[in-house]
């Protein structure tokens, strides 16, 4: 009797859960709206937390005042305004942008390579960026243009150079497009990692700085840096969103995609370029933050299904939320690297979801 009623209760809970999941799957727009609101609330809270606490209403009032010149009657000190406007808002917005960029790039690379283990870094962008940053740190000259130093520039260029080399080399191989991209990416990535190891070995006092880049973080976020990276991310993301159709077609393979009206060779090059641009821009401002790009698209897929038309926009918002949260955690825990926090939060959550998923991921 008790066992039976317990079983009944459990099945009712399951029905409620599956109804919720049905709702999410049928109405991705409503889910998207909810996620955007959550991101906004999270961002306001994240601006408030820190060594100096700022009330959420003060944050909102300062933003309204600075952006629209509105006077809400609230008062605040000049110090609060500096903290909010010059330090925390750029940092929170950068975290959101980087999270969005890495998540959308991850969804793109997973769909493009038809591989659930792909992430934005899989084709060598990470090693390229890291080597670029390391080389920049080893050069004794300091050049800074609009707060964009050699490290940022070299990381950006390194990431794009790496993916270009991978793409060019992959086209020489006899393997089918996606397989050869993955294998070439792995090979080139290993080569660059060796270069990075050598640079770190030779770096001496700058080792710590190289290491900080590898872990990633938003301590160095400023308005000008955000302003330079944001357009790149926006353009790349728009190009990707425009091609949700292509990513859907690729679900059944390259040939099936071609039969469904996708010019596979051309679209692959475009998506690769857009995904890499977005990744490179994110990496240039924040260093290598792992895990967001791998996990967020999967989490989103488990909720809304595999259609890129729903996965891409939701990944953008959820990725932004995750890194705003991770950065907040990192600050509250005494400025530990944000990559550590995102992995600490993300990995167990991901494992939990994988257990819950109705069917496993085949590779």
């Amino acid at each position, binding site marked *: 009797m008790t066992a039976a009623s317990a079983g009944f209760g459990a099945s009712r809970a399951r029905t409620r859960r599956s109804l919720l999941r049905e709702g999410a799957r049928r109405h991705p727009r409503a889910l998207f709206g909810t996620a955007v609101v959550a991101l906004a609330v999270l961002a306001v809270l994240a601006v408030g937390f820190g060594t100096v606490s700022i009330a959420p209403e003060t944050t909102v009032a300062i933003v309204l005042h600075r952006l629209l010149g509105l006077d809400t009657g609230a008062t605040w000190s000049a110090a609060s305004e500096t903290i909010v406007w010059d330090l925390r808002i750029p940092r929170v917005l950068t975290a959101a942008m980087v999270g969005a960029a890495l998540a959308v790039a991850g969804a793109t690379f997973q769909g493009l390579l038809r591989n659930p283990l792909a992430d934005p870094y899989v084709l060598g962008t990470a090693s390229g960026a890291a080597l670029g940053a390391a080389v920049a740190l080893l050069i004794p000259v300091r050049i800074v243009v609009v707060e964009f130093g050699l490290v940022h520039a070299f990381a950006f260029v390194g990431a794009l150079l790496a993916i270009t080399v991978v793409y060019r080399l992959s086209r020489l191989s006899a393997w089918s497009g996606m397989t050869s991209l993955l294998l070439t990416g792995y090979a080139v990535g290993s080569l660059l990692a060796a270069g990075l190891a050598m640079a770190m070995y030779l770096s001496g006092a700058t080792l710590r700085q190289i290491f900080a880049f590898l872990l990633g973080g938003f301590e160095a976020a400023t308005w000008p840096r955000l302003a330079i990276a944001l357009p790149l991310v926006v353009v790349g993301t728009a190009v990707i969103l425009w091609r*949700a159709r292509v990513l859907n077609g690729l679900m*059944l393979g390259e040939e099936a995609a071609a039969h*469904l*009206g996708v010019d596979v060779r051309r679209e692959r090059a475009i998506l690769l370029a857009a995904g890499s641009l977005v990744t490179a821009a994110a990496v240039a401002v924040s260093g290598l933050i792992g895990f967001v790009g791998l996990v967020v698209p999967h989490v989103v897929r488990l909720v809304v299904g595999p259609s890129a038309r729903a996965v891409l926009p939701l990944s953008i918002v959820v990725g932004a939320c995750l890194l705003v949260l991770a950065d907040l955690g990192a600050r509250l825990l005494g400025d530990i690297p944000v990559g550590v926090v995102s992995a600490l939060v993300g990995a167990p959550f991901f494992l939990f979801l994988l257990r819950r998923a109705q069917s496993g991921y085949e590779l």
Partner: protein
Amino acid sequence: MTDLVPTDRAAIAGPPIVEFRAVTLAYGRREIVRAADLSIAPGERVALVGPNGAGKSTLLRALTGLLAPVAGQVEVDGRDVADFDRAALARRIAVVPQLAVLPFSARVEEIVALGRLPHEDPIRGPRPADRAAVAEAMDRVGLGRLLGRDARELSLGERQLVLVALAIAQAAPIVVLDEPTVHLDLRHQVEVMELLVDLNARDGTTVLAVLHDLNLAARYFPRVLVVADGRIAADGPPADVLTAARIRDVFGVDPGILWGAPWSPASADR
């Protein structure tokens, strides 16, 4: 039910919907098909049979624009396939995809909906008409009972039916299949064949299928092409084309193994 009387080809009016003019196909330097000529009228059901490596699939790849001919020309609706952009061609020719491992879990209806991609606006995505077409295709194939199921949990036969539904949702005047029955048990083989006949009869869809099973080809296709060694060795109604001598010649197998007796139209209808 199934129309087993071979369609009179002369009775099918209009210009050809598919035309191969002296088409030579090659992978690199390896020539697969030599100077093939072929003309298919709208509304025909055509089976391509022949040994492995004879060039059947290669002919289909040329038709669907995946392989450009080394010489000659492939035309759809009187227009060179090379002149179509991919989406336009996909609106003319639906190809039942090969079974593939899905990278992500996907529901049956989400797979069928992929058939609407060539009709979809890149920004706005699927419209109510697309959703209606998906629902209708699922209905036709009888997939209602699989609604909401993860496509990766299905049997091979069910998966094949899902892919046929995808091609039906694509709503193209030509449907192309490459060995659609290869993994299937008898019931699913018949189910797929009946669907093709129904599509052909009700919508006038032209059907081209590569088949290994000569019995299925003879039973469900009024016109059979025997492809051997890169040439179209025979073309016509199954009774004329699938003769004992030709089967022995092309496949190197005694037809008695297949039918217990030399081929005759009567045994095909049994």
